[in-house]
């Protein structure tokens, strides 16, 4: 009986929402999107700001995860998608039309830990990180760790590895990095939003990983830079390709993307982990909005391209406020130029109209 009442309540609520949306659709054109959770704070900020720039459109974004975003875009139930990892060839083939990746912002994945006395600035080499996460290094005072951290006292205790238990773009960036720096990792585990972790405990979401690390002495794990910053977690400097130990920051992430800018492919499907460049932080990643190159609905297409243009110009300026790294100028310019490829069904470009 109670369930019945709850259900009818739900029906009324759904009907009310449907009516409300139908009502406002007359005034504004609503564009629906779904996908990645990592850039969600940035996107919602952008959509609210853009609502003031163009009052005739309204953007609605559901942060259901990159996989879900790609699925919904492929089924054309949303007007745009968003993903933390580039779509695979297989996924692109499954879509009914060519899909473009538009880079938006970048983020870093930082190594955080809970060892009494260790503050931000533990020095980690790629080999050490890979060995810890494959279970080859099991003690904090392992020779390789001591060698990278002269003068730092490391306890003779077991390392507790913590990773994400949920599928996530953060895990994708981290495992992509490990796959580049360690052949052993590539052979045994590989890259993905969820992988078969050789060792460790799984925490759900950044908050789950953080909770486990805070509650578990001698643990180490990875979270997004934004998350580590806002929760005052200690994080490590990571040795990059040039041999420098780099502190993760918005600048060192943008430096990584700048290093990648020269060889940026035309479809922007690129990984910026382990980039060259003395200032580049090696565990960094890009996130993308996904749009169909041919827009079925010319009106919506026009609004969408208008937003993308604004996002690549003015939108980039507000990214650092939310601790996201803006695109390097070269990449933003290249992305702007690519918007000209988005057309209506009869081939008319939508940019600038």
């Amino acid at each position, binding site marked *: 009986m109670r369930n*019945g009442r709850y259900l009818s309540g739900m029906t009324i609520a759904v009907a009310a929402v449907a009516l409300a949306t139908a009502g406002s659709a007359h005034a504004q054109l609503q564009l629906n999107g779904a996908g990645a*959770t990592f850039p969600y704070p940035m996107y919602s900020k952008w959509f609210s700001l853009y609502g003031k720039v163009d009052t005739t459109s309204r953007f609605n974004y559901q942060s*259901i*995860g*990159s*996989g*879900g975003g*790609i*699925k919904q875009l492929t089924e054309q139930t949303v007007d745009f998608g968003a993903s933390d990892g580039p779509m*695979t060839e*297989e*996924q692109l083939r499954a879509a009914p039309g060519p899909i473009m990746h538009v880079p938006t912002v970048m983020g870093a994945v930082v190594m955080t830990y809970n060892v009494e006395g260790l503050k931000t600035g533990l020095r980690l080499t790629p080999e050490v990180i890979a060995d810890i996460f494959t279970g080859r290094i099991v003690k904090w005072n392992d020779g390789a760790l001591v060698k990278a951290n002269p003068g730092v006292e490391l306890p003779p205790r*077991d390392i*507790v590895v913590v990773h994400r*238990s*949920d*599928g*996530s*773009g953060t895990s994708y960036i981290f495992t992509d990095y490990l796959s580049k720096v360690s052949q052993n990792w590539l052979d045994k*585990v*590989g*890259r*993905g*939003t*969820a*992988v*078969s*972790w050789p060792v*460790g*405990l*799984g*925490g*759900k979401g950044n908050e*789950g990983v953080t*909770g*486990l690390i805070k*509650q*578990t002495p001698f643990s180490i794990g990875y979270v997004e830079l934004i998350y580590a910053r806002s929760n005052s977690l200690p994080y490590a400097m990571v040795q990059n390709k040039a041999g420098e130990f780099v502190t993760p920051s918005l600048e060192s992430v943008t430096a990584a993307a700048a290093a990648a800018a020269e060889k940026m492919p035309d479809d922007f499907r690129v990984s910026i982990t382990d980039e060259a460049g003395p200032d580049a932080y090696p565990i960094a990643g890009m996130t993308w909005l996904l749009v169909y190159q041919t827009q079925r609905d010319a009106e919506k297409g026009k609004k969408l391209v208008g937003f993308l243009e604004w996002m690549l110009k003015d939108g980039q300026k507000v990214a650092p406020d939310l601790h996201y790294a803006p695109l390097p100028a070269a990449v933003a310019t290249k992305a702007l130029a690519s918007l000209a490829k988005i057309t209506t069904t009869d081939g008319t470009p939508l940019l600038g109209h």
Partner: protein
Amino acid sequence: MTFHAPHASPSPSNDVAVRDDMTTDWVDVTPMLPRRPRKNVGDLIFRGLTAAAACTLVAVVVSIVVVLGWESFGAIRKFGWGFLTTQKWDPVANEYGALPFIYGTLVSSFLALVQAVPLGVGTALFLSEMAPSWLRTPVAFLVELLAAIPSVVYGLWGIFVLVPWVRSTVTPWLADTLGFLPFFQGPSYGVGMLTASMILAVMIVPYITSVALEVFQTVPIAQREGALALGATRWEMIRIAVLPYGRIGVIGAIMLGLGRALGETMAVTMVIGNRPEIALSFFAPASTMASVIANEFSEASSDLYVQVLVELGLVLLVVTMLVNVLARLLVWRVGDVGTAGH
């Protein structure tokens, strides 16, 4: 309806007279029966509505099974029964085995029952048999309030309160006292099977307690007084009068709790450690079917990966059904034994 005639039983036909077998006198009970109109529109509507409600629920269950089966068909065909018996879970290599999750679900729920049944039934017995009446209502209310706490709150409480306590106090004590058993060996991180089962136990106690309390309160006073009149102590009265009478109801209460434990997702995910591995030690991290679905579904991108997760949902449904069927059989058995014994 109440028959005032002694030893009255309704006759099979629509006659309104009831025969008293002892005296062969006919007693007219017509004035005592409520009038039954042949056709009542309200009754018909009510009947239609309830029938529709029942049919809807059946249709929902059937369609869930059909959709789960349909959506996971590819995975079922690819992995077959091997899905249920293999242990490797590697989304990158597209190799999936459900055994660690089935094991984790069953063991964590069973361990939760081991803790929650004495706690829940004990609380219900105390409230129904021993507690002063001014204490009964507030305590029963507080226990039921436990059921109203959202599971994510339980999870957070688990991470910040239970996990450190388990690591620093519970597991060292268990390792000291019961460490000769393989279940209580190995390193303890605080998160793991044991902690998950403890959270589950707290979550299902209110279900067990409130249903068991209701059941105990239906035990006829006369039966209790009879036991006491025979010289039973309070404990003996509970043992011979209350517990046998409430046995079936209590088993029902426990099964309700078990159903909740099998499907619980959020709180378990936050404290179980999410490691798809079968470890004998209860200190070790584990993973359940519900938690892996919640963890990996949103980012599952390949078709096979999604199908496998849907298949896990199907397996969870079947496991829950099997457990319920077993419980029903148990209730029947116990019921038979109970009536045979009396």
